[in-house]
């Protein structure tokens, strides 16, 4: 036995020692930063606390489709407008990018040489050019459109100009809520029918026309109800008054530029994951299902896609997350999302950088986490279940 027992050769002691050291250093660092920050804030006369959230914002937001925002509204309202705008462009972008991405991914595996080349050029060009540049480029194209007075007309109700796309706005009158309830009920019953039909098919092998019955329930039934009640909906048409359109609904060029750029950029990445997903399904699967006598479209729908999805969904999730985070680039074209509205203008007006940035970052973390949770649930539902 050695007389001078070395504590450092004991793994347990060493582990506790190092972890305590790290925690200590970390706490010291935080303490130091808090001290300096408090001092700096006081010296620069920057207010602290969350009181600024209820102060009037004093600026206008040009694009706020969900909340009627006025400049007398508070910074908290700016925050909500920002969150909704971020979610709106991310949601629309994710859906459109998924459709375009799947389409391009499948095209790249098609037998048409020309189409494959065109798709390849699209993917390489959009993937290798910075997204910010693409957003700015789309925006600069859109503001080259004719001015309001010379706007392009479609069917006398759609107007396209450098101020955006004006279209009729549906106005719901009393009684429309019944139609709305009918649509929701139709969706629920379609899902019930689907799971019942699946169970029955598993048991007896008999099939049920799920798609056509769902179509009837969701579209034809509410439509019938709509006319029976007496069409409780009218349209508010945009009309040129003075220098701008009054009434109707408007989609601003900032939104269109963001939507187009995010969709086209992300779809290029999604198409690559779709392509590799479909390629990951072995040739034997295709040949085996063909030898069973399945139709070509059935092979794709029943054999290839379900197996490919297992490979596609995890990278697809990270593409959705990327798209949502990339929607923060709206600041470059003045799209009033979370970063531009709350993290930009509100921050500059109140000077409360720390509070604003903490809120913005926490919101993005929440959105990211929510997307991952939902996609993980979906991912688990499509994974191969080992019996």
């Amino acid at each position, binding site marked *: 036995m050695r007389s001078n027992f070395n504590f450092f050769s004991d793994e347990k002691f060493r582990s506790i020692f190092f*972890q305590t050291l790290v925690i200590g250093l970390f706490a010291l660092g935080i303490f130091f930063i808090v001290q300096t920050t408090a001092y700096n804030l006081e010296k620069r006369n920057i207010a602290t606390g969350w009181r600024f959230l209820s102060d009037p914002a004093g600026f206008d937001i040009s694009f706020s489709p969900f909340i009627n925002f006025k400049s007398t509204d508070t910074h908290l309202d700016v925050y909500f407008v920002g969150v909704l705008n971020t979610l709106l462009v991310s949601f629309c972008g994710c859906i459109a990018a998924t459709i375009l991405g799947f389409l391009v991914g499948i095209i790249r595996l098609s037998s*048409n040489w*020309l189409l494959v080349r065109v798709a390849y050029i699209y993917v390489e060009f959009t*993937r290798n*050019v910075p997204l910010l540049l693409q957003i*700015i480029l789309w925006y600069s194209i859109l503001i080259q459109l004719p001015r309001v007075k010379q706007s392009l007309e479609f069917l006398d109700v759609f107007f396209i100009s450098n101020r955006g796309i004006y279209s009729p706005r549906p106005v719901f009158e009393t009684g429309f809520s019944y139609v709305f309830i009918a649509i929701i009920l139709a969706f629920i019953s379609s899902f019930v029918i689907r799971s019942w039909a699946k169970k029955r098919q598993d048991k007896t092998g008999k099939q049920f026309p799920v798609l056509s019955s769902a179509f009837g329930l969701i579209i034809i039934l509410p439509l019938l109800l709509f006319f029976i009640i007496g069409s409780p909906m009218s349209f508010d048409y945009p009309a040129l008054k003075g220098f701008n359109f009054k009434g109707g609904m408007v989609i601003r060029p900032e939104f269109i530029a963001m939507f187009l750029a995010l969709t086209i950029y992300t779809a290029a990445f999604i198409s690559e994951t779709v392509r590799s997903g479909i390629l990951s399904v072995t040739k034997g699967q295709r040949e085996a299902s063909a030898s069973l006598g399945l139709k070509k479209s059935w092979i794709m729908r029943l054999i290839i896609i379900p197996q490919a999805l297992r490979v596609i969904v995890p990278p697809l999730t990270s593409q959705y997350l990327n798209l949502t985070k*990339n929607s923060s680039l709206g600041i470059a074209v003045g799209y009033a999302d979370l970063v531009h509205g709350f993290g930009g203008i509100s921050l500059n007006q109140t000077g409360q950088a720390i509070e604003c*940035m903490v809120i913005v970052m926490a919101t*993005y973390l929440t959105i*990211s986490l929510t997307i991952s949770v939902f996609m993980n649930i979906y991912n688990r539902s499509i994974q191969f279940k080992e019996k």
Partner: protein
Amino acid sequence: MNDITETRKPPVATTGILGWLRMNLFSNWVNSLISIFVLYILFQFVPWILNWTIFAADFKYNFNGEEIINREMCSRVLDPENGGACWAIIYVRFYQFMYGFYPREEVWRVNLSYIMLAVAVVPLLFDNFPFRKHFLKFTYVFPVIAFFLLNGGLGLESVSTNKWGGLLVTLVLGCTGIALAFPLGIILALGRRSNLPVISMMCTLFIEFIRGVPLITLLFFGMVMLPLFLPEGIDMDGLARVLVAVTLFQSAYMAEVIRGGLQAIPQGQYEAARSIGLSYWQMNLKVVLPQAIRISIPSIVNTSIGLFKDTTLVIIVGLLDLLGIGRGALADTTWLGLAYEVYFFVSLVFFIFTFAMSRYSLYLEKKLKTGINMGAD
């Protein structure tokens, strides 16, 4: 049921140009329709774009043979019907695109750095480069040389970073971000896989936090919050603050990529290293990391492409990278309205860099797949 004895027609030509066309473009009537449609679109579009970018374009002189010095002299402004792109804006501002507002008498320092960057990076990329070992020694000292060369000091006149711009800023951000994030990423990846719960938790939280927020919020953090955290007297210039944000951002992504590599190393490697008495750091530095990094290089290159494209975001916090210089040129009233030329040029420069990187990553992937003596350096 089909009649088995049914006679089939002899196969039509499947070789030669005709056969190729038949197989690849006109295999059935749907394919034929698509091919004709795509060909029609291409015939409409490609000649027009070639004409606009090259044949009808102005480079230095307009169609009257005058040297172009403002937008009014561009062929496409004088004759909107026939004029193509006016590349004169790029020609006139080329210096700014490459160096920003770096003083002209000192510009040799930037050029020298560009050349040295190539000398430092190319041997790093290819295993079989002649005298690679000696070149790599230079790669290690290059950042120090480049810092003094670009920034000044050691007898060279100091050039403030707010005079830097264009490709210089893009490359400084991209290269420094990647170079600094690499060791940080390794530490974070090891930390996340550590057995010590506190360290593993802290690294995981850091990585997931950075990956959950957009880069632009981190740039804002660097721009507006970092100065508040620093004690009086310590001033960081804009470029340095942005670099901190970019490095933190990239290190989190790098860490995840390297963690993927670490997970691919079989447990036996760790056990073998421990059984011959190597310590934790010896095991990682000499056995595990060389193998893990080798297999994660393609992914490292891919995240680096992402970072390189993301450096454009610095224009939002007021730095003038390649895109920033482009927007500056467009804001100048003498060149107003030539947006497409500028954005085309900036896209092209980015495309050249990122496309080269993605080809390199593909090349590595292929090499890794065929390489049998993996890990034997």
